[in-house]
């Protein structure tokens, strides 16, 4: 009983992280119909930026944890967002009217470039950041107990807040309406005066910023990272996006939570060594049984 509860709690936090990253896949797919395979590596870059921002803040004498966390969030989100903007400009915009295959190859190339560039500039070894927040809530249940670290609570709260803010932007603001219009009918959007290239850029920035939010949170919690973490995380988040229905924003968040929960339960009850296998099998299964996912529309065309 306690292990199920414990894994549910862990799964919720993990799922919120998957959901944040899945947002980038789903929004980019929604607006230009491509899978941005470099997105996982954008997440990886944000882990390094988190470490750099903590080092910088410490160097400039910022000692208090809330300030360090806040500073790391702002710094990492802004710079990772800029990465997203540059990636779209360099790797995708020149291919706007090319075949899907060229775009796909460009995406894979971008992913390799990011990995190699980080490996060269930061070194191939695993790196880490110090643990900033320690301590946990403990709830006794029968003979056992469920433990929730303060960090996990913080992750869940910040991730949900990030999703809430994004949903508000997309549903209620002018930028959000422009994104939705461009997604539904790009040609009509341009005839109404929308600079659709700018909208596409901002979708990359938003998606990258969400991945950065996840990157900061996971790095603060887990501590260690290397230049290759984007691959596994990318596939997991992609699975979440497909599970929820690629192109659907609520779908990405829901898919993330479901994937996180089921993966954690699998790890706790069956085998934690095979949890990645579980997720990838799930991806294959969805693609076979219901490729449009839980909340997606049946796709006419696929990558």
């Amino acid at each position, binding site marked *: 009983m306690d292990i199920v509860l414990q894994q549910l709690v862990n799964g919720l936090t993990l799922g919120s992280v998957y959901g944040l990253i899945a947002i980038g896949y789903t929004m980019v797919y929604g607006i230009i119909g491509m899978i941005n395979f470099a997105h996982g590596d954008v997440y990886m870059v944000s882990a390094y930026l988190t470490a750099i921002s903590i080092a910088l803040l410490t160097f400039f004498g910022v000692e208090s944890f809330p300030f360090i966390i806040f500073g790391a969030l702002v710094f990492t989100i802004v710079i990772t967002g800029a990465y997203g903007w540059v990636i779209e400009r360099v790797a995708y915009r020149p291919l706007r009217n090319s075949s899907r295959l060229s775009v796909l190859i460009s995406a894979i190339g971008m992913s390799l470039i990011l990995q190699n560039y980080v490996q060269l500039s930061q070194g191939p070894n695993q790196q880490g950041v110090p643990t900033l927040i320690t301590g946990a809530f403990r709830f006794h249940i029968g003979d056992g107990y469920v433990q929730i670290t303060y960090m996990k609570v913080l992750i869940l709260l910040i991730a949900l807040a990030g999703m809430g803010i994004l949903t508000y932007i997309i549903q209620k603001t002018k930028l959000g309406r422009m994104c939705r219009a461009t997604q539904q009918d790009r040609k009509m959007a*341009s005839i109404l*005066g929308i600079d659709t290239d700018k909208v596409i850029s901002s979708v990359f920035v938003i998606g990258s910023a969400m991945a950065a939010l996840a990157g900061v949170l996971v790095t603060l919690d887990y501590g260690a990272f290397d230049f290759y973490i984007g691959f596994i995380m990318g596939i997991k988040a992609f699975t979440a996006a497909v599970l929820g229905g690629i192109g659907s924003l609520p779908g990405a968040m829901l898919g993330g939570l479901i994937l996180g929960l089921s993966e954690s339960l699998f790890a706790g009850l069956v085998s934690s060594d095979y949890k990645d296998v579980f997720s990838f099998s799930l991806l294959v299964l969805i693609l076979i049984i219901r490729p449009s996912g839980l909340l997606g529309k049946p796709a006419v065309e696929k990558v």
Partner: protein
Amino acid sequence: MSTLMEFKEVDVHYGPIQALKKVSLSIDEGEIVTMIGANGAGKSTLLMSIFGQPRISSGEIIYRGEDISQKSAHYVASHGLAQSPEGRRIFPSMSVEENLLMGTIPIGMKHADEDMKHMFELFPRLEERRNQRASTMSGGEQQMLAIARALMSRPKLLLLDEPSLGLAPIIVKQIFQILKDVASTGMTIFLVEQNANHALKLADRGYVMVNGEIRLTGTGAELLVNPEVREAYLGGH
């Protein structure tokens, strides 16, 4: 009256197919001009080429003294040109209100409330459905929404592509009555139609397009009684 827009010897190609052949026409400020033509004549191509989609292969499109033929669609839209396009192209998963707000992109939100109220006076059916998803509306309502959305940008020139297409005669009549009201406010309108009867009655001047070429031109009244036009577009009556 000064010329608002002028096509000068415009050619458009889709690959090997030439859709417009040396098209020249002009629209004065405050005028209602119509272009009639059969299926595939090139009417939609003409309207879309104003927004560079497709780009013209030769000639000029002069709007308020400037050649806009090589400008981006959003540049054209933000300089006072608005279109209710072929097939309406409303945003299906947005509400009626959100669709109307999409029309305000070129001028910002400052007149949005006032103009939306005005649109609901012109098209009362839209007000009843303001929070409804646009995709669930009837064809006539969607057409009204497309016109209203175009008007929300307070355009200098309103471009309409077959607003009567696929609609019941009674709805067509309503829509043309509303267009007449809009025109009476001094709005310049360029209307592309197959429904020659309604279009020529509304318009000050008209052009007849056949296979991408302008075949005839004259006042609306002249074209209505022209034997060639009567034969081809008015069922010979």
